[in-house]
């Protein structure tokens, strides 16, 4: 597997994790009696997972072009992943941190091309 493989699949894995996280967050927000339905916290993670999903999609479309935009989004995604995972922990939504772990795995694979260039 070469560096472009990771560059191509990293945003896909992030987007997949974010999409599942978004679905879980929406279910959490609208399911009565789960302790967090209708709360600002549950709404916040809907927004954050959606933002991660959109950012990962943009990176995928850019495919290495406009690298400053991609780089900025790449960093913001990490902040989003960590923040959403922490929010999910405080919401006691057990599966949300799991989805963010998937996102983080995808994000880390995105570092491979950079490491490859550094060690070439």
């Amino acid at each position: 597997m070469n560096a472009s493989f990771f560059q191509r699949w990293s945003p896909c894995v992030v987007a997949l994790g974010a999409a599942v996280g978004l679905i879980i967050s929406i279910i959490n927000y609208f399911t009565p009696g789960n302790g967090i339905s209708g709360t600002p916290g549950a709404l916040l993670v809907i927004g954050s997972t959606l933002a991660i999903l959109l950012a990962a999609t943009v990176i995928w479309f850019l495919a290495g072009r406009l690298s400053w935009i991609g780089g900025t989004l790449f960093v913001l995604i990490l902040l989003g992943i960590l923040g959403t995972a922490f929010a999910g922990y405080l919401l006691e939504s057990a599966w949300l941190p799991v989805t963010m772990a998937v996102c983080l795995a995808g994000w880390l694979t995105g570092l491979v091309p950079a490491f490859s260039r550094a060690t070439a």
Partner: protein
Amino acid sequence: MKYLSFLSGLTVLPIGLVIAASAQAQDLWPTFNGNLQAQKFSPADQITPENVHELEVAWEVHTGDVSTGANGRPVSAWSATPIFANDTVYLGTPFYRIFALAPDTGEVKWVYDSDALLEGLTQNILKSRGVAYWEAENPADGQPCQKRVYIGTMDAKLHSVDADTGEACAEFGTGGILDVNTWNTTNNKWPLSLFQPPTVFEDTLVLGWAGKDWADTVAPPGNVFGIDARTGDLKWTFNPIPADMTDLTGTANVWASMSVDPEAGIVYLPVSSPSPNFYGGDRLQPIPLASSVTALHIETGDLVWSRQLVHHDIWDYDTNAAPTLIDIEQDGKTIPALVQTSKQGFLYVLNRMTGEPIFPIEERPVPASTAQGEQASPTQPFVSVPEPVTDPEWPGVYWLADLAGGGYCSRTAENLVYEGPFTPPSLEGTIVYPPTSGGIEWGGGAVNPETGTYIVNSSNIVQIYKLIPREEFDKIEAGGTEVAGFFPMSGSPYGFELRAFLNPIGMPCWNPPYGTMSAYNINTGELLWRKPFGQVQQWGFYMPADWGSVTFGGPLLTSSGVIFIGASMDRRVRAVSEQTGEVLWKANVDANSVAIPATYTYQGKQYVVFVAGGNSFVAPGVSDQVIAFALPD
């Protein structure tokens, strides 16, 4: 101060005990506190510490009686204890309707609508603590209303309803409705709101009421009424305010539940503070029955004894829960006792026949007032055993809250007055701990009469009390418009500001825990365990468990050693081990369960029922949910 005037006249009532008194034997839950002794104890033992984790939802009902505060209708606050009697679960709602439910399915048997005015006549909130149940000792065959359910309304109407059919009982009051406000003849500034159901013993209803706190200097005196359960006729009135002081003060009402010693025929009243609640300069004469626990003969309303728990109350330290009655074993002797919880965090253990303390109560010097005109009492009663539920000193500034608030907490604390417990309200602003919010609130405690283990949940809250000179206050409330956190105490030289000590982002400025649960051996007064209880939930986020939670509502205790409780700021109900304080089970509900749960056994199966109605004072979110849990078949 203590009064003893009627003990010699006590008679042991020969009549068979009413249903509430024998609740334990029949495994019912026929009163607000489980039984007349306010023990909140059930002999049920099907649900144990070992199997409680298997609990599942048995049934769930939504009454439809919920208000978010939209459309001009006040927000609802539902703190009803479900009543189980007559093979039926009865509930009073914040819209003042009665629901009769099948105990095993939750199926609605009937609904009674009081057609009450749903306006904030005394409190800008639609509030109910439910219903009371009565049944005739010798029911007349074929006659209606031999079993009844009573519900009160904010507009001072007490309704009597046939427990079998939901039809009004015509012989009670006028067409089944008693207008209690017709007895509101002194300082009639607002109606006597009946949020708390009456206490029922034999054929007498003992009725207290709630009013409009912190608004006026002169207010209705806190009369308690003894009422004929069948007809609604007034049997007696008990007035805690000296007759020559009604032009100066008022209230000292009984707004919380009461307890009854069925054998002695004594009702025990938690009497609240006099008005105005935070300034006593215009009522310097003693009001010995205010802020007290008071015993009356239930048939006549005659005073048996009274013990004042706060002298010259200027902190709104209402006695706010029914005392729990229990026989204590000491040195081979059985002592008829009561345990009175309090906002100030003390547990007063008294001989319930005489009012004498079983564990010492010590008068200690307390700070003087600096407000012009005020003369705070030089001493106040302190209890050391059982150990108070709150620390003697306020918890101090929490570094995290201070950091998150950019130093707001420490800066503010430096400019506030604090000289220890009972520091009077001041013009500078006083740190009060525990404040009017408790300590221990109206849920009170639960006791296992077999083991003497006493369980109580409590809050560690810090509030700031500030007196505001009248002229300055009038500018704040220009045009008479009420401003949140400000209370007029009209007729006194000061208005009042009351607020929790929070940083700018709403985080408590003081060190956690914010709430705990404690277990005592009430025979010895020994503290068995104390643990943070509940969780604070802010914007949906659960804060660390060791912070605990402010709690409103009480526990129940079963003979198998399981405590069931809602009460916390998160939307959860829990089962806790009586032995260790460990949380054994928890479940999410639709809103805060700011109530006392109920448990009963029906057709061989034990149910635990919670009302999850919420209270915006505790946390946002309201609901109309009634939810029952049971073990799987």
